[in-house]
């Protein structure tokens, strides 16, 4: 049970959140202009690194806001949380 710091509500149990996978994957501006390969990449391919990962969470049982976190998938340590639309912070 991770403790995830919602940017608004503060630290809450993981059970209150929905996971949203990789962050910063925008819906293509003009899907019709994409090749099948490019569209498949958007639909089905997401990064899956072992290490730092910028990912989306929604505080589903709380304020219902989507936000982003940088978490180390090898240790589950969350290095940063930031609001949707903000750039990914640099983790040193």
């Amino acid at each position, binding site marked *: 049970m*991770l403790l995830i710091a919602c940017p608004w509500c503060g630290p809450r149990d993981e059970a209150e959140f929905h*996971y949203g*996978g990789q962050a910063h994957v925008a819906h293509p501006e003009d899907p019709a202009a994409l090749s*099948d390969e490019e569209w498949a*990449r958007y*639909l089905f*391919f*997401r990064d*899956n690194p072992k290490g730092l990962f910028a*990912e989306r969470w929604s505080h589903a049982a709380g304020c219902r806001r989507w936000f982003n976190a940088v978490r180390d998938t090898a240790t589950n340590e969350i290095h940063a949380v930031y609001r949707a639309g903000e750039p990914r912070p640099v983790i040193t």
Partner: protein
Amino acid sequence: MNPLPDSLPDHPDRLWRSAEPKRSYDVVIVGGGGHGLATAYYLAKNHGITDVAVLERGWLAGGNMARNTTIIRSNYLWDESAGIYEHALKLWEGLEEDLGYPLLFSQRGVLNLAHSLQDVRESVRRVNANRLNGVDAEWLTPEQVKEVCPIVEISPDVRYPVLGATFQPRAGIAKHDYVAWGFARAAADLGVDLIEHCEVTGLDVRDGRVTGVRTTRGPIAAKKVALAAAGHSSVVAGFAGVPLPLQSHPLQALVSELLEPVHPTVVMSNAVHVYVSQAHKGELVMGAGIDTANSYRQRGAFHIIERQMAAALELFPVFARAHVLRTWGGVVDVTPDASPVVGLTPVEDLYVNCGWGTGGFKATPGVGWCYAHTVATGEPHPLNAPFSLDRFTTGRLVDEHGAAAVAH
């Protein structure tokens, strides 16, 4: 007080000797789990390719092969899935003899419970699909479920009553370590090098063709490289710049202490995320749902175990005072359509076998057979051809999620 019969057969006095890496091989298999070992075995046995190294970053078969709940079945919905899993099941049926190793393969049947009208529809659909594919499958009423497994609670008054179940009599369990070691010993006997504590840290790709691997024990040249790295497939394929449609998640399981026999079969309930069998020595072996967030931590969240226990006791009230002895987690690689990826990659001579999610163990001999064919011939075996990477571009998925939604 009588001692229990020593029900487990002894392992043989000779297994394998961990090999030192050579400078080059015809085929390097990355990942010394069940799939990697089975692939090596069938490369040697079926295709006469014995200049093969299996590289394992830890101890052999110490990943998901050592962490699964050992369920074997082939009653999958889609023809493509039934094809490869049924091929595997047929191989399982002759595997002890083939490998000369006691695998404790026990065809005690698997029940998949239905708890809602929608579950019933999907279950009957699957039974019918299975029959057309020659997979043994039956639909059982709650009373018939009780006959197969008398401890299942079939009262209509529980929150999610058992409305019936599919039953595959030929399904069952095996002992995972025995399976892995059986393949390992047989492969080693055919000349395959099993190299432990050898982590792959890079793939050498020249002009679109893979030429070798870099490891913590030095570079190894290879004519062909076959990935079988399960939860770590994304990481390894990433060394060659090959993206895979995978997400890695922890999956937990647990065992109880040894108990007198109470559970003669295998019961799975997707609706409440429980699967349970009683292993040969008497311990209850149970699997839980996966953690939703990506992680390579071989450890799941505790609340998932608590939920699993609540669901398990709804189905099996007699388990109340059994004890959880040990919990553990594996890392499973899951694809968008819950079906594996087995085949070629955009990099020549680099092959991929991944995305088995929670279903990898049961496929072990089948995928080893087909993947070996794919690697040996450079062409997908007909049974794994539908599981190409290409399907994500065409949209021709093999969607084993079934209907996820509860609607109307």
